[in-house]
C-alpha cells in the first residue's frame, strides 16, 4: 500500500534536514503507529506524505498503491485515497461544512469514476457519518472548524475521513487534547472504519490511544529516523521507560 524508502526531507526555507533516511512499509488493511518525542518529525512525515508545500525531498522515494506518490499534487493524492487527519485542523471562515464536504466528496468521487451523489444521498451520508463520531447534525451549517471546540475539531477530522473513504488514513496526534470520553468516541469511530482495504498510520505522542486503536505495528521515530519497530507491546514499553533510552540508541545509530 505504502512504501517509503530512505526518505530525506529538509525545510525548503532554511535547508534544515528533518527526516534523515526514513523507511516504512504499510500493507493493505494494516494499522501502524508512529510514536516519538516532540520535534522528532512526525508531523513533517505526515505533511510530506500529504503533499504540503515548503519541504524539499532531497533523497528517497515513496510509492503509494503502486504510484510514485511524490509526483502527485496534494489534491490528486487525496483523490487517490490518501487522507490526513490534521494535528491542528484549519478554520475556513464562512465556508459551511456541507458546502465543503459537497465539494470534497464530488471531487473525490469524480476522480474515482463514481457517479455524483444526489443532494439527498449526500445529506444522508453526512448524517450517518457524523453519527459515527457523535457530531451534531446541525454542524453542517457551521463554518469548517470555526468556533469548534478542540474535541469537535478532532472528531470532525474523523468524520471527514469517513466521508472520503480513503485507502490510507494518517492520523496526526488525533488524541492530543482529548479527554477520555472524546478519545473513546474517536477511537470507536476509527475502529468502525478499519477494513481490509484501508490502512492506518496513527501518529501519537502517548501510548493511551493505542489501548483503543490497537496497532499491528509500532514504530519509534527519533531524530528523523525510525529507530525501532515492534508489536503493540512496544508502545507499553515506551510508556514505561520514556523515549530517553531509545534516544541513546538513536544517537549511536546516527
Amino acid at each position, binding site marked *: 500500500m505504502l512504501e517509503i524508502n530512505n526518505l530525506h526531507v529538509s525545510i525548503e526555507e532554511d535547508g534544515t534536514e528533518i527526516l534523515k533516511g526514513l523507511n516504512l512499509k504499510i500493507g493493505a488493511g494494516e494499522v501502524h503507529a508512529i510514536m516519538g518525542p516532540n520535534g522528532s518529525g512526525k508531523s513533517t512525515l505526515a505533511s510530506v506524505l500529504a503533499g504540503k508545500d515548503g519541504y524539499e525531498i532531497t533523497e528517497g522515494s515513496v510509492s503509494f498503491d503502486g504510484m510514485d506518490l511524490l509526483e502527485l499534487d496534494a489534491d490528486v493524492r487525496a483523490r487517490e485515497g490518501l487522507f490526513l487527519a490534521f494535528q491542528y485542523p*484549519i478554520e475556513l471562515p464562512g*465556508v459551511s461544512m456541507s458546502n465543503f464536504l459537497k465539494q470534497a466528496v464530488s471531487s473525490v468521487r469524480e476522480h474515482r469514476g463514481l457517479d455524483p451523489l444526489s443532494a439527498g444521498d449526500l445529506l444522508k451520508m453526512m448524517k450517518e457519518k457524523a453519527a459515527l463520531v457523535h457530531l451534531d447534525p446541525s454542524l453542517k451549517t457551521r463554518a469548517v472548524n470555526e468556533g469548534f471546540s478542540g474535541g469537535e475539531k478532532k472528531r470532525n477530522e474523523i468524520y471527514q475521513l469517513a466521508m472520503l473513504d480513503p485507502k490510507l488514513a494518517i492520523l496526526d496526534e488525533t488524541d492530543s487534547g482529548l479527554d477520555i470520553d472524546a478519545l473513546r468516541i474517536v477511537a470507536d469511530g476509527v475502529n468502525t472504519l478499519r477494513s481490509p482495504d484501508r490502512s492506518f498510520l496513527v501518529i501519537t505522542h502517548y501510548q493511551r490511544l493505542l489501548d483503543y486503536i490497537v496497532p499491528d505495528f509500532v514504530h519509534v521515530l527519533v531524530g528523523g529516523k525510525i529507530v525501532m519497530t515492534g508489536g503493540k507491546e512496544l508502545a507499553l514499553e515506551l510508556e514505561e521507560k520514556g523515549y530517553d533510552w531509545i534516544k541513546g540508541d538513536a544517537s549511536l545509530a546516527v
Partner: protein
Amino acid sequence: MSDNSTELLHKVADSEYKYGFYTDIESDKAKIGLNEETVRFISAKKNEPEWLLEWRLKAYNHFVSLMESEKTPEWAHLTIPKIDLQGISYYSAPKQRPEYESLNEVDPELLNTFKRLGIPVQEQERLVGIVVDVVMDSVSVTTTFNAELDKNGIIFCSFGEAVQKHPDLVKKYLGRVVPYTDNYYAALNSAVFSDGSFCYIPKGVRCPVELSTYFRINESGTGQFERTLIIADEGSYVSYLEGCTAPQRDENQLHAAVVEILAMDDAEVKYSTIQNWYPGNAEGVGGIFNFVTKRGICEGDRSKISWTQLETGSSITWKYPSCILKGDHSVGEFYSVAFTKGRQQADTGTKMIHLGKNTSSTIISKGISAGNSQNAYRGLVRVNRNAENARNFSQCDSMLLGDRCGAHTYPYLEISNPSAKVEHEATTSKVGEDQIFYCKQRGISEIDAIKLIVNGFCKEILAQLPMEFAVEARNLLAIELEGSVG
C-alpha cells in the same frame, strides 16, 4: 505563500475578461464633443420640457466653471488618466424605438448578448417574476410589462418615459438627493444624462417583484450617463436590482451615473448592484472608468435604505453609495464586496450621515485584491449635533490574493453628538497557504479551494442579495477567480 499558490493567484488575477463582445445594433449618435449644443441636442432628441432643458443647462454651466477652475477630483488611491471629455459622444440611441409586448419581439442580437452573459432573461422573468427594463446605450429599448405593477400603481419605466408621463414627480424629486452642484461628475451627468430608470412606489405598497435593470455600455466611445430616481412613498417597500457587464473595447470609457433614492415614513428600499464593467486588459488598457454618485435619503421616520453591491469590474471605480438618515429611527445599511485584479483600482465605500434621532447604520465591506490591483475602502460616518443616540457599526475586511496587490482602509469619523455609539472593526488577511492545503487534502483543487475561501469571506454580503441575484453573483465571482486554470 508558496510558489505554486502564488503562481496560480497571479494567473487568476491576469485572466481575461470573459464578457467581452459587442452587440451590433445600429445607433444614432450625438456629434462628438461637449458644449451647450450637445446639451440642447440631447434634450431635443428626448423631447424634453423647457424646465428640464434649463436644469441641464444650469448643470452644464456649473460643470464648465468647475472645469475652468480645474476642480477635477483627485483621490489618494486612484491614478486617473486625463479624460478627453471632448472626445466622446454624449448620446447614442438605437435607431428604431420599438415598443415590445414581450421579449420575443426583441432584436435577436440583444437576446444573444444576454445568452452569452449567462442571463436567461425570459427564464428569469418567467420563473422569478422579475420585470427587466433593459437600458442599452442610453435608451430603454425594451420594457417588459407586468400587470402586477400597474395594478399596484407602481411606476417603473425609463427615465425618458417618466419625463413624458410623470413630469410632476420627476420635477419634484430630480436633484433633491444629488444636486448638480454635488460633485464634478454629478454636474456632468446632470447636464448630459441620456436615460436611466424611474421608479415610484405608492403609499403602503409592497412591490411584489424585484425590479431589475441591466445596464450595458454598447457603443464604442459613448459616454454613458444614466440617471436613476427611486421614490418609495410612505410605508412602501421595493427591492431594486442593477446589474451590468460591458463589451470589450480599446479606449477607456467614462461611466458617470447618478442614482437618487428617497424613502418616506416607514418606507424601505433595498438597492442591489452587480457591477461588472470591462476592467481593461491585463495591462489595464481599455477599461471602464466608473465614477458613480449614489445616494439615498431616509426622508421619513423609521425609513430604511440598504445598499448591497458586488463590484468586480471597471478599470477604475469611484463610488460611495450613501445614506442620509434624516428621519428619526431611520436605518442605513451598506454591504459591499469589491474584487479587483489585474491593474484595477477601486476606491469605494459609503457615507452615513446621521441627522435624525435614534438613527442607526451598518457598514460591512469586504475587499478582495489580486494581481497588481489596488482596493480601498473609504467610508465616512458623520453624526450631526442634533442626532441623539446615533448608532453605527462598521466592519471592513480585506483579503489579499498574492503579494503584488494592495488593500487600504480609510474610515473617517465626524461625531458631533456625545450620545453617539460608533464601533469599527477592520481585518486584513491573506488567503492562507494552510487553508488551501487543507482543502486540497480533501481532494479539492486549488482553484476550487480559492473559490470556496473567497465565497466564504463574502458570505454575509452575498446573503443580502435577493436569491437569484446571489446565484449570479457567486457565478460571477467564480468566473472572475477562474482564469486560465480550471
